[in-house]
């Protein structure tokens, strides 16, 4: 997804037309996850210490990412795996397609992966005539429905069991009952056949351990295990930010991840994959490929404030507590990642022209920062990005409408010099008679009509300083 092709993200426009079912469903999920997380956190007296260590290690990893990535590549290759580097989303898709072509792949099974959503791999595979089947139950459902995810952990939470039954009936040519357990059984059987017959398994990855070149995949359903065990070819597409130094560090993140995400102590299956299978009888792929995806991440590292977004371990806790997310759901964020973390990642990855509304999709209440397992200062980054949107900086140009920029520029001059401010305060009342209606000003000319169109403005009076002088004199008297 390069900067020039991603469509503009109209958060405000979307959020004005959210279907009522979305906040209801999303809040059922978030309430469950917030409760589960709180229970797990209460069990662990060293939770805050764990968060601090998690944050410190992620910080360290970002600051030394080049060294860890170099080591990772060396170790994966030593273990018999193939490493590919993708500068952009297009390049990553091209690499995966080439691997697929080299192995005559007709069907690929996929486990849930944000990186492949980010590069829109499914579209690229379909265009090349390769079936790409999502196998996480929620992802499978939304693939059938042809929509995006409404929640990071439970992507199809906005659909009712009746809607899902209708989808299954339509696509599988069966009469599916509206019963979650029965629907899961149908999906199990349908996807079982795909797992056994697919020539390629595609996954993302939760962590990459530089020490041994190990890919760590965390899932609950077991589809991640299927994708990396059944086909003879396993391709993992993983962002370069997923690297961590060593196994000892991993203990910290495994303890933080599931507790923050679903309120489990550990997710059901955690796999640690170092290269392809060693013996035929053990199962597992004959070939293992790791596609390391940059897609803007190495540029984000340039910004010492914004780059903390790359500490994220994708648990979704920030979204679960966000009052804005809970009312608009995942679609509003217009990209593969939603919630507060999406609001600080998308503008940096896609550019502020595309995602300039997202830093404002927040009340700055700070709940996200309180629950973040690696202590990303999300409100600080939101404010930083708002400044970037408004003023521009060395990383991005301003994208504010010109009238607001000009007004802000005049305001910054007027407020910076005492005499300009005083002069302005004296001069402004001159315009009062032209626009005054009763006690208010109305119908000011462009661009000031942006204000007076919706609400009246009190007349300009240069009395604040006088008022202040009298007040402060009185105050001095009373304290003398």
């Amino acid at each position, binding site marked *: 997804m390069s900067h020039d092709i991603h469509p503009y993200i109209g958060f405000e426009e979307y959020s004005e037309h959210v279907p009522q079912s979305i906040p209801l469903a999303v809040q*059922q999920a978030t309430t*469950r996850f917030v409760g589960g997380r709180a229970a797990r956190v209460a069990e662990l007296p*060293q939770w805050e210490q*764990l968060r601090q*260590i998690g944050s410190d*290690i992620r910080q360290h990893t970002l*600051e*030394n*990412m*080049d*060294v*860890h990535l*170099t080591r990772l590549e060396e170790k994966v290759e030593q*273990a018999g795996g193939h490493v590919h580097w*993708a500068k952009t989303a297009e390049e990553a898709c091209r690499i995966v397609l080439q691997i697929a072509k080299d192995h005559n792949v007709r069907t690929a099974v996929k486990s849930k992966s944000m990186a492949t959503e980010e590069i829109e791999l499914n579209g690229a595979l379909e265009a090349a005539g390769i079936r790409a089947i999502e196998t*996480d*139950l929620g992802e499978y459902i939304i693939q059938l429905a042809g929509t995006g995810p409404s929640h990071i952990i*439970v992507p199809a939470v906005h659909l009712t*069991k009746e809607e899902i039954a209708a989808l299954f009936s339509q696509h599988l040519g069966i009469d599916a009952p509206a019963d*979650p*357990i029965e*629907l899961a059984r149908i999906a*199990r059987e349908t*996807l*079982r056949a795909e797992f*056994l017959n697919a020539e390629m398994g595609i996954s993302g990855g939760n962590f990459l351990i530089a020490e*041994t070149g*190990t890919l760590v995949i965390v899932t*609950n*359903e*077991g589809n991640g*295990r*299927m994708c990396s*065990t*059944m086909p003879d070819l396993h391709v993992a597409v993983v962002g*370069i930010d997923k690297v961590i*130094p060593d*196994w*000892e*560090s*991993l*203990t*910290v993140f*495994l303890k933080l991840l599931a507790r923050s995400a679903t309120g489990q*102590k550990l997710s*059901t*299956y955690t*796999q*640690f*994959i*170092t290269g392809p*299978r060693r*013996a035929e*009888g053990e*199962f597992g792929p004959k070939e293992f490929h790791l596609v*390391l995806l940059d897609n803007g991440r*190495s*540029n984000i*590292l*340039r910004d010492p404030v914004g780059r903390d977004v790359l500490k994220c371990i994708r648990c979704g806790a920030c979204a679960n507590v966000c009052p804005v997310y809970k009312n608009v759901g995942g679609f509003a964020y217009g990209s593969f990642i939603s919630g507060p973390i999406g609001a600080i990642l998308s503008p940096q990855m896609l550019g502020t022209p595309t995602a300039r509304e997202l830093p404002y999709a927040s009340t700055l209440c700070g709940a996200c920062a309180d629950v973040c397992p690696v202590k990303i200062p999300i409100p600080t980054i939101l404010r930083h990005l708002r400044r970037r949107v408004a003023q521009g900086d060395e990383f991005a140009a301003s994208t504010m409408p010109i009238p607001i920029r000009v007004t802000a520029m005049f305001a910054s001059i007027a407020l910076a010099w005492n005499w300009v401010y005083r002069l302005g305060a004296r001069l402004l009342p001159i315009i009062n008679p032209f626009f005054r209606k009763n006690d208010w000003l109305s119908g000011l000319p462009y661009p000031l009509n942006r204000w007076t169109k919706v609400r009246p403005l009190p007349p300009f009076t240069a009395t604040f300083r006088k008022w202040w002088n009298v007040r402060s004199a009185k105050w001095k008297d009373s304290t003398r």
Partner: protein
Amino acid sequence: MNNPVIDNVRRSLGHTAQTPLVARPAIYKPRLPEAVDSEIECFLGEIKKLSGVGQRLASSEVDSALQTLLAEQNIRKATVWETPHLRQLGITEILNSCGVELVSPNAGKHEMALCDLGVTEADYLLPETGTLVLRSSAERPRAVSLLPRIHLAIVRPEMLRADMHQVFAEAKDHHYLVFITGPSRTADIELTVTLGVHGPRNLFVWMV
């Protein structure tokens, strides 16, 4: 070899190829083990919380427990890890004598997928989370704990480790590990917890 991604990471961080690695921040102290009995209790308790079935058995009770399981779960076809310990317990003989069809653990995936039961050991156990840690090799194929609808793990107290730290220190050079914490689960449809969506629906853990 020149690598544009690493080069750009270096540029962004102001590093060169010679920049040395700084030591990473220190990590907290791992959990310490408690008495074996309380570790076992904790472990089996967690399995139960995860909707698995965990129980303690004497070696002599394995025979009858297995027969009960076969009858209750209507097991016709099974596959078993070929490890010394499982051989010693005579698992394949018991299955044979009960008329269960045995599939080689190295058989093709299609045949393995038809099995009702997969029997494994574990390499390590984590009491705090009720986790089984399995390494893989030709004698211990990954599919046995994944494809059959029921997974039975027969484990021993000496597999217990207090924390992940010890497991990783011992096993990090092995090429494939999996942590199994309860049966396969999902809550993707209306948040209804459903077991056995892709992996096994039932998990039995016998501490012998």
